């Protein structure tokens, strides 16, 4: 494929790809997300390949291992296009029947379609889990082969980059992001435009833009779903960001423990370079940009921005205090603009369709959609995408299907070990950065853990603090010792051996750690504790006054 040199050539290439495709061609999309991969989806893909070969149809029928479809609970999922017939929990043994019935004769294999108390749904869009979502970022996951840039181009990919580079000055791109009110999806919810502007204005010839794809939070798996399903979407956002900020180099920082993610990103980088979206004089605009993949060894604190940047330099990921922001002084003390995977993926949408359109989705202070990963005691564990402003109740019951077996939900927990828990009665709260912050359950990256009545909140708090204690880098005393001391008290309460004054001690420790710790990990370490003390205080009191276990 020749290099694409202008916006016009990009359009011609896209038309060419579309013209060469028969929309009636059978395309079998097998989900290859993390859960489906762990449920032996590979054997399903092999079975389809063998079946096509056996029948001599390997040209007529395309089999694609796509990114995560989101409905992990019922994986491995297979969608047969163009009709969009959706089969769930597919085993290799089901493949000949799917082939004989659906692929060749357009009949439905009833036993493999979704059904619930309200009936069955044959097509993907009819399944309530999908019907109730607003899929701007994830919809491509089901349509494209993450290994083929042509598939992304066919969906309009790199069109936003062309628009930015050929029709807009960097300041205008920045202004558009500011107008969109896009907020960082990684945890803090910091306005992306403000961060970009700081990096743009910071003195220095060399600047960097960085994708934070660390995703170390337990129960958070939306970023890898997005990144593995549509790597070019994230990369396009990064290149646009580089242009707006004035950076000619980018880093993609991600986990080492997924060889497939590594392969996916590396291939995407190579393809983007081949097509001329990376390298010198991109789309004849005079803008040069390169991006490199940096693999992380795996510790929670590496996801903290200053620690992550140390790691890129080849040093241990110990955070530093941020009197000076990393957007002013980051990697090798140069201005470094870091956003997470989902934030970057929003950028092409905003530049492509405009900030005004983006502002029609979401709430006053939280615009756009948000990916949420549902886990724990929930019937439909998986990844969903909803407009900000959707109530937690709709997410947990409408999409998640409530707790399995009709059990009662006691609490939901947002934001992993640095987040907070909310009781069931607050589920009517809309998904909104500021509202959830105010309730003590900041959204974090969007990992939502659902807990039923059998979960002890004191025990869960201890679990989160133990996690953080193990992941703390140990550099600053408030975090290292503060967490340890909180754990001592918690373990006593959990064993029914709490004593008068324990709650006050916990609150004091939480206050000091929150004030004095060096980085966000330490500062937010007590968040689960404070939220459970706020909403489930009686469980703590039970372990103190009554000398019995909290639950």
């Amino acid at each position, binding site marked *: 494929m020749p290099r694409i040199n202008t916006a016009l050539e990009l359009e011609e290439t896209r038309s060419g790809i579309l013209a060469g495709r028969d929309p009636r061609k059978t395309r079998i999309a097998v989900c290859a997300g993390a859960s489906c991969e762990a449920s032996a989806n590979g054997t399903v893909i092999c079975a389809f390949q063998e079946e096509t070969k056996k029948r001599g149809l390997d040209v007529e029928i395309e089999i694609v291992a796509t990114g995560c479809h989101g409905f992990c609970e019922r994986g491995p999922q297979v969608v047969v296009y163009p009709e969009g017939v959706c089969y769930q929990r597919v085993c290799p043994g089901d493949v000949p029947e799917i082939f004989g019935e659906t692929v060749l004769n357009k009949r439905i294999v009833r036993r493999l379609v979704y059904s619930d108390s309200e009936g069955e749904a044959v097509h993907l869009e009819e399944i309530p889990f999908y019907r109730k979502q607003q899929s701007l970022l994830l919809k491509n996951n089901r349509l494209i082969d993450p290994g083929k840039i042509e598939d992304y181009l066919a969906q309009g990919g790199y069109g936003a980059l062309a628009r930015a580079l050929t029709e807009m000055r960097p300041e205008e791109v920045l202004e558009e992001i500011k107008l969109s009110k896009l907020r960082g999806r990684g945890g803090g919810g910091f306005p992306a435009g403000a961060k970009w502007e700081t990096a743009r204005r910071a003195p220095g010839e060399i600047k960097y833009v960085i994708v934070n794809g660390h995703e170390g939070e337990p*129960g958070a*798996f939306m970023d*890898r779903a997005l990144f593995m399903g549509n790597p070019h979407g994230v990369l396009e956002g990064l290149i646009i960001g580089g242009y707006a900020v004035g950076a000619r180099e980018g880093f993609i920082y991600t986990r080492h*423990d997924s060889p497939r993610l590594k392969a996916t990103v590396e291939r995407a980088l190579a393809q983007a370079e081949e097509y001329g979206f990376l390298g010198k004089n991109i789309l004849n605009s005079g803008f040069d940009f390169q991006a490199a993949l940096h693999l992380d*060894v*795996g*510790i929670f604190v590496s996801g903290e921005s200053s620690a992550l940047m140390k790691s890129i330099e*080849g040093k*241990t990921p110990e955070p530093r205090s941020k009197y000076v922001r990393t957007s002013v002084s980051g990697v090798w003390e140069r201005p470094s603009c870091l956003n997470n995977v989902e934030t970057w993926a929003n950028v092409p949408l905003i530049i492509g369709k405009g900030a005004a359109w983006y502002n029609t989705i979401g709430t006053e202070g939280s615009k756009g959609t948000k990916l949420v*990963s549902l886990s724990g005691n929930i019937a439909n564990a998986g990844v969903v995408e909803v407009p900000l402003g959707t109530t937690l109740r709709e997410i947990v019951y409408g999409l998640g299907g409530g707790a399995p077996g009709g059990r009662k939900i006691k609490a939901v927990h947002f934001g992993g070990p640095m987040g907070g828990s909310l009781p069931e009665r607050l589920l009517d709260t809309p998904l909104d950065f500021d509202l959830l912050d105010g309730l003590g359950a900041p959204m974090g990256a969007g990992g939502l853990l659902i807990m039923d009545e059998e979960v002890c909140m004191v025990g869960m708090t201890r679990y989160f603090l133990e996690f953080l204690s193990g992941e703390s880098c140990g550099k600053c005393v408030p975090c290292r010792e503060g967490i340890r001391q909180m754990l001592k008290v918690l373990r006593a309460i959990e064993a029914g051996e709490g004593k008068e004054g324990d709650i006050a001690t916990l609150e004091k420790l939480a206050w000091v750690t929150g004030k004095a710790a060096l980085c966000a990990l330490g500062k937010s370490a007590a968040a689960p504790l404070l939220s459970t003390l706020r909403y489930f205080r009686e469980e703590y009191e039970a372990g103190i006054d009554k000398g019995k276990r909290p639950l």
Partner: protein
Amino acid sequence: MIDERIRGIIDRHRGRPEAAVQVLMEIQGLNRWLPREVLTEVSEKLGVPLSDIRHLATFYKTFSLSPPGRHEVHVCNGSSCRVRGAKGILDEVQNRLGIRSGETTADGRFTLEEGNCLGCCSLGPELIIDGEHFGRITPEQVDGLLKKYD
């Protein structure tokens, strides 16, 4: 005596101190642990003080400074697996193998770790043996699964 393949990894990054983590990661991936003489070699060839190399090697849980068992058993300790009963699975594995998390059986057959979340939360509670996932398992299934590995 250092394995030729390990030597190859080190040589590829000779004189590049910033590649230290990368080199340790590659060696860990290949050899499953980092012997002392390998750390010394990495230090000398990359030009990084041994104390810094040891700092890196002990900082990350991913790096192992002792040889692991033939099979690596991970009980996922993510928040979702936990509320879905991971503790019961871990207790059962510990009882069956007679070791605690982080230890290796005396016969060198198994090393047990409490793994971090791998994002397959819908499959919890999860037991992962040598990278193969066993999802939605019960304590009763543990013994049968372990017996498949010798």
